[in-house]
């Protein structure tokens, strides 16, 4: 029974990822030197009310490559700032603690903090040990609402069995800024397989609809700030950057568009 649930969840995650990718598959590519990062992301649905906000799902991702085939430097920091028209609402969400989900398999982590799950994604890396054929290391990402050392954080729990059973938790600190981008998510990444590995891709989609005090709430909600008379409005969805071991930081501002839901 549990296995069937797990399979269903995995299928759902895949379908959602595919859906998001299909609806918001545009990517911003940036390059410095031989290092190239493709940032992806967006929200769904993109038909949103002109006034007020509606629950949305947001996806953020990045793919890391080099143009000369060399191994990319290790990814050490992920930083994400989300447009002020998107709003996080953690009220009423139970928080999970680090030691509850690490080390643990995905199912064990979800089993431990089932109500704190706020998203999922995938994580891929390559390990190139000396004299060893490179081998991929892939894992499933599960996002938890969490508390770490008293701070409100989002845990990105990574678990994979390829090549060996192992888990890792990325801790996204939540911050607030003034201006166009209010909410920030910042995580420092540990080294992958000491000095021998590198992250090749990471994606995370966040969404959670839950009830709190009798009301239905959404982890993320957004509106479409289109000017009067216009049904579609472009907007700067998020500002994302990856910081690397060698000191390079590659970032982009992801511009997306929304459509006014209902009559203008």
């Amino acid at each position, binding site marked *: 029974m549990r296995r069937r649930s797990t399979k269903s969840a995995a299928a759902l995650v895949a379908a959602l990822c595919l859906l998001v990718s299909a609806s918001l598959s545009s990517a911003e590519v940036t390059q410095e030197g031989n290092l190239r990062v493709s940032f992806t992301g967006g929200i769904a649905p993109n038909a949103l009310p002109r006034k007020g906000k509606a629950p949305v799902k947001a996806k953020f991702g990045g793919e890391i490559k080099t143009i000369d085939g060399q191994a990319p430097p290790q990814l050490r920091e992920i930083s994400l700032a989300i447009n002020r028209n998107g709003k996080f609402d953690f009220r009423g969400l139970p928080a999970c603690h680090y030691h509850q989900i690490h*080390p643990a398999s995905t199912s064990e982590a979800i089993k431990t903090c089932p109500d704190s799950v706020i998203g999922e994604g995938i994580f891929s890396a390559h390990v190139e*040990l000396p004299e060893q054929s490179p*081998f991929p290391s892939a894992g499933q990402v599960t996002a938890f609402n969490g508390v770490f050392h008293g701070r409100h954080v989002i845990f990105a729990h990574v678990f994979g*069995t390829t090549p*060996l*059973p192992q*888990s890792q938790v990325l801790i996204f600190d939540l911050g607030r800024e003034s201006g166009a981008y209010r909410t920030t998510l910042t995580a420092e990444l540990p080294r992958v397989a000491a000095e021998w590995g590198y992250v090749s891709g990471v994606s995370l989609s966040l969404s959670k609809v839950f009830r709190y005090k009798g009301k239905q709430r959404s982890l993320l909600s957004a509106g479409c700030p289109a000017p009067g008379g216009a049904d579609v409005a472009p907007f700067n969805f998020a500002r994302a950057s990856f910081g690397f071991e060698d000191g390079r930081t590659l970032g982009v501002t992801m511009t997306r568009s929304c459509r006014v839901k209902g009559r203008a």
Partner: protein
Amino acid sequence: MTRTGRFLPLLLIALVGTLGAAALGASVARADLKFDRIGVQLREPNGTHSRQAGAHSDFEFSFSYPVDETTQHDGSDKPGPPEAAKDVDLELPPGMYGNPTPFLSCAPIKLFNPNTIVPSCPIASQIGTVDINLVGGPGQGEHTVALYNLSHGPDVPARFGFKYYYAVVTITPRVRPGDYGISAGSFDITQTLALQASRLHLWGVPADPSHDTERMPFQGVEIYPNQAPVSTESPRVPFFTNPGSCPDSPSSFTATGNSWENPDAFDVRLLSTDEEGTPFVWEGCENVPFKPQFVAKPGTHRAHSPTGLDVQLDVPANDGPKGYSSANVKRTVIEFPEGMTVSPSAVAGLGACSEAQVGLGNNNPPACPDNAKLGNVSIDTQLLPESLPGEVVLASQNANPFHSTYAIYLLAKGPGFYVKLPGELNLDPRSGQLRVIFDDLPQLPFENVHLDFRGGPTAPLVTPNKCGDYTVKTEVFPWARPTEPVVSTVPMPIDEACEGGGEFNPRLQAGVDNPVAGARSPLTIRVTRQDGEQNLSRIEVTLPKGEIANLKGLEVCPDDLAPSGNCPKGSQVGIATSAIGTGAFPLFVPQPGKEPTALYLAGAYKGAPYSLVTKVPAQAGPFDFGDIVVRTAIDLNPVTAQVIAKSDPLPQILEGVPIAYRDVRIEVKKPDFSVNPTSCEQRYVTTTITSVDGTEAHPSVPTKVGDCGALNFGPKLKFKLKGGTNRGDFQALTAILTTGKKEANMSRVQVALPHALFLAQEHIGTVCTRVQFAADNCPEASIYGKARAITPLLDKPLEGPVYLRSSSNPLPDLVADLQGQFDIELAGRIDSENGGIRNTFETVPDAPVTKFVLKMKGGRKSLIVNSRNLCLAPMRAKVRMVGQNGKRHKERPVIQTGCRKKSKKGHKK
């Protein structure tokens, strides 16, 4: 001539002497006998002195004893001889000889002719004259009589004689041992004549007309001056010949004489000038002819075959009455072609002749053992009517005139003398090329010397490996011109059985005496090589998996003794046997009665932890070349524990004799030393055998033991974790494997850990690359544990660090680098099974291990982290083991943790 007829003359001569001796007692003794006059003269027919080398001059030898004028011999007033010659002997210088063979000989009985004072010898048998002066007695005064060539028995080379009145005096030449000069003497000269003085004339060419007036007339008693010429039917060929060499210093004659009155007082005179004071310095050597011819024929023209040899050296004589005799051979050097070498096969059962047995320098019969004979020799000389038969024998190693390893003697028997000629065999130490040198040969003429070395499988020589137009080079040096050799090159084609010279197909045999799984059994490895193929140079043998050695408690040859092979008996593990040589009967070493070979276990050598010392006493036949010691490095394949034996280069030549290996056999037969595999699958003894030309061959033979089913297989594996029991705690894992007796060895073991244990990837510091591992240079950070293996075959456990090492698998391997008497690396493949960490040792050496302990580090070096609280439920590992005998064993052992056991009441202890 009948036996009686041959000995009758000798009897008569002896009788004459005996009668003389009987009269001796009546004489007056003197203690200071001196020749009154003595001399030698060599003249040309025209009367001038002759010093031309090789010329045929007339020879004179004269002597007289003093006459004491005051002594009356018979009471009359005439002076009497106080001394009468008894023995007179003259040594001619080497190279000077008379040749009686062409001339008619006179039977002694005809010379003695007892019924008359007239000798009845044929005129043609006269070879000179003798002037005698008799004092007292019958015939007193001076007389000239004929000197005849007498027939003689087989014990002397010649005999001459003369008669006056009823008395006969004989002169017997002999060949001196040593310098092979000619001496001639008259012994026990009759006193009937009271010989006081004599002058002996030997004619250079007896038939020369200049001697016609000096011949004894028919029915004559003596020769008178101015008598009528007497012709002869004798051939006009030389009788007497001057030496054929021209040394700077004069030659000398040695005359010795005594008297009946003083038989023990010898007067010895060295005569280096003639009576006119002209020294005997020979000259004109450049005019002496010398045209030797050399022929050498091998017994076979087949390549790479034992062969006899037929060698002939001809020196044509110059028999003309004019001119000079051919020069005699002083030195001969025969250089055989490269590739034609001495055959080791020849020495099996061969003996050698010592210097004492040969008796160089004396005239005793050689007493060489029969098995020292290498062939026959025959010498034809114009000086003797028949060939001199003899043998070629091997000389004793070093104890020969050259102090050389190899030498031979040519031993031939002549009438009354032995020819004993030492020849040096010079073998090139690198190629084995053979040179035969005879030096300082006798200054006597020969027309032909024929050496016939025996053929057959044990022939002394071996033809070259490959066909070709080979040649034998000879240098023949004459006494007349010792620095001007006549050089000739004789073809010696090898043009049969040419195939096979370049091939290399060695064969391998290997096996154990008792092919039972896990048993202790002697092991034999044998490499053979076909005759004619390239020779063996190196042998590398890899034993099958599981064919290993028990080194526990074994004595090892100390490092300081191993190079010499003088190892203690306790370190001997076997013997070695080899066969070397060419042909059907190679030489097997060791030979019966010789020192045995031995195979010793020694210590580290050429990077390998052990070595074998093969000691082969190089003793064969009469030769002893000491010990041949070959080291063989013994290593272990660290992965399979297969024994790898790499020999040093095998000696290719020993004391100039190429060692053509035909059979190399190693028998490891020390009890309980060699251990069989516990796997009954077919395995192989593999080899890399290298030829002298660098060609490699890889013969292998399958080996298989049986009765594997009789071996059990049920090892026990226990696991223990040391560390916290909470999620996220790191663990130190200990695995302990134990085996029972009479069990098959482990072949494969796989351990899957439960899901509760994750990889602590953050603790992967680094891995050891294979390059670093091979160089024993792994970084410290790549060590994640340690391991220890206890085997009943070694004195000490094998132990060492456990690394993460790069591999061909997706993940690095977990490698236990076990070190000790041997190094073993036990590599485990890491992967996952159903989400759990799994390690598989796919290739476990087929070697007995009673206990194996693997300890992985904990704490910050731990590779294992709890993914849950370990105390929630017991954890079991999944263990699958396969024995070398194919038996399988599964276990689900509980992993011991730090969790306290619950009491029966449910409380934790």
